[in-house]
């Protein structure tokens, strides 16, 4: 392992210990830990191991000054077989 790769691995171990807890906005389940850094108009997500979707979250109260960005995950794939011409085409995961 190169020195660079070693340092990156060490950094990731640290991030996964002290990074902010990322939860699924739909289920409340913990997805993992990550370092989230705003940089040059983007958010950099460092160290998160699971695949997440990002979206602004619905609000109970209308506020003009604050919105939340949250994380969600897809449902596990559970699509039907639609190979036969008569099979339904409207399916969901």
């Amino acid at each position, binding site marked *: 392992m190169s020195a660079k790769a070693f340092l990156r691995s060490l950094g990731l171990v640290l991030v996964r210990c002290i990074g902010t807890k990322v939860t699924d906005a739909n289920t409340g389940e913990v997805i993992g830990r990550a370092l989230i850094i705003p940089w040059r108009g983007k958010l950099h997500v460092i160290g998160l191991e699971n*695949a997440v*979707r990002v979206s602004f979250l619905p609000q109970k109260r209308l506020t003009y000054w604050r919105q939340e960005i949250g994380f969600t*995950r*897809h449902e596990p*794939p559970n*699509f039907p*077989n*639609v190979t036969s011409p008569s099979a339904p085409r409207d*399916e969901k995961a």
Partner: protein
Amino acid sequence: MTIGALLEWWKDIAPDQAILLVYGGRAADFNAIAHTNKIFIDDPRLRTVDNQRERQSYHGIWQQVARWLKSSNTNFEFVYFAEYDHLPLTRDLNSKQLQLLQTENADVLAFRLQRIDGTSHPHYLYHVRDPEFHAFFDRLSVRADKRVILSMFGSGSFWKREAFQAVAATEEPFPIYTELFLPTVAHHLGFRLRDYGKQNLFVHNLGDYGNGINVAKQQGAWTIHPVKEVRTRHPLK
């Protein structure tokens, strides 16, 4: 592990004539392999070094195996694909997989199957930069939702022959990493894919689990990955 030792493992699972060895090593070594059903594959898309960044493809394997299936006198109904270091740990692997396939009413069983479109999944983000990526599946898909992209772990998967052959017959339009191409093409052709569930516990991307075989067996593993070296032959249950 030698190829001879590897074949011995698999002969506990399936008869000799049902084991097809697809060899991607050196041609000279291939000729020396004492096994009837063998194919040499000389595909630069398989022989990558940085598999993910070079978008390694198993599609060449799928095509060659599909040709072999057509030429075979045996009417095989299912295909179990396994990389060399993904070993079976139970004699009744095939019946267990058939049972799961039936229970799930599935066409394909895959390890770590997940939907990754619109997510932070690195393989998705790496591919979606190319506008042709989604466009290819848009053209291919028989499904209502053409945006779905699936990912699976590539070391092993179980297929109904029809699904396997349909994927083999679909040309790869530009390099797409095999862990995305195979499940997503199968999905958009209309086949049903399901995950191996708790068997995922025994399938890892890194390391060498040669010393973890007994523990995995005790925990109910059907297979294990990766195993690079096995010093003693473990009798299968």
